[in-house]
């Protein structure tokens, strides 16, 4: 039982092993996305458009996911680690959204009579 768990963990842990080259490409990608984010802040047509906030959240989510997957090895590591991170992260994000609905601007606009 324990041996099979060990073997399973061993297999999962060593399916892939990122090289320095992968890390360098990841860093380049993260740098480019950061440049795009900062450029968007200064580019008025984008910054004043309705897609600005969603696009910035999307870009930061992509960066977040890439760092977690490649640098933190969640893509390559045992799924238990992924669950230990993603589970609380989902709860945290849902709590954040819930609190914003309860106390944020959305809550104020809902509570204010038209």
């Amino acid at each position: 039982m324990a041996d099979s768990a060990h073997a399973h963990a061993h297999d999962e842990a060593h399916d892939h092993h990122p090289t320095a080259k992968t890390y360098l490409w990841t860093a380049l990608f993260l740098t480019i996305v950061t440049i795009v984010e900062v450029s968007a802040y200064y580019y008025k047509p984008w910054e004043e458009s309705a897609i600005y906030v969603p696009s910035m959240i999307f870009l930061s989510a992509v960066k977040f996911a890439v760092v977690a997957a490649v640098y933190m090895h969640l893509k390559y590591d045992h799924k238990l680690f992924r669950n230990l991170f993603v589970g609380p992260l989902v709860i945290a994000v849902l709590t954040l959204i819930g609190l914003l609905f309860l106390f944020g601007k959305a809550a104020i606009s809902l509570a204010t009579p038209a």
Partner: protein
Amino acid sequence: MTATAMPAGTGAAHGGDAHAHGHHYTTTGLDNRKIAIWALIGSECMLFASLISTYLIYKGKSLVGPYPHEAWTDPATGTVYNPILNIPVTSFSTFVLLMSSLAMVLAHNAVVNKGKPRTGFWQKLEGNSVFWLVATALLGTVFLMCQAYEFTSFVHEGLKLGTNLFSSSFYTLTGFHGAHVAAGVLWLWTLAFIDLKRGLGPADGISVDICALYWHFVDVVWIAIFVLLYLIK
């Protein structure tokens, strides 16, 4: 029930991490120190989510300035306060933190692959774990210096901890993050010192891996903070 005999390399994504460590393994076949750091990171997600929520809830509700993105004139004195956030400096510190994550993974790579024959300048540099650990610690220190500069300039411009809702939530969130970075920097300098004194090898891979996970978590938190606090008005 704890298993003690493990196949080499089990419990980490990197070859050699588990060599010479016949203990610390659970029936899952995973190193319990690594499970612990992931559990800590999970709980830290909750902490930072609560701090970010607080900031977002109070966003735009400050009665007096200075404000993050808009100029403000004090009605009592007529003093004009410019938007307080300094995006170029923060963009630079964000880049520094991203590069520190790169240095961190290269440090881990160098430790777990120590002993491999290397030729040429780049390969030798790639295998120099002391260099990458010191580089990560230095980049972390630069990030902290940028944050110290930012806080100092904010205070000089009239934004203190109790000035308004923005300042309270901003300093609390970025201060907590900065404290995490400071702890990480201390951890990194300690590892670099150990590496310099006795050398870190594949058997120490898990120790570096745990530090790296913490450091990358600090990085991903900043990725969220940078966009939510600085770039979204």
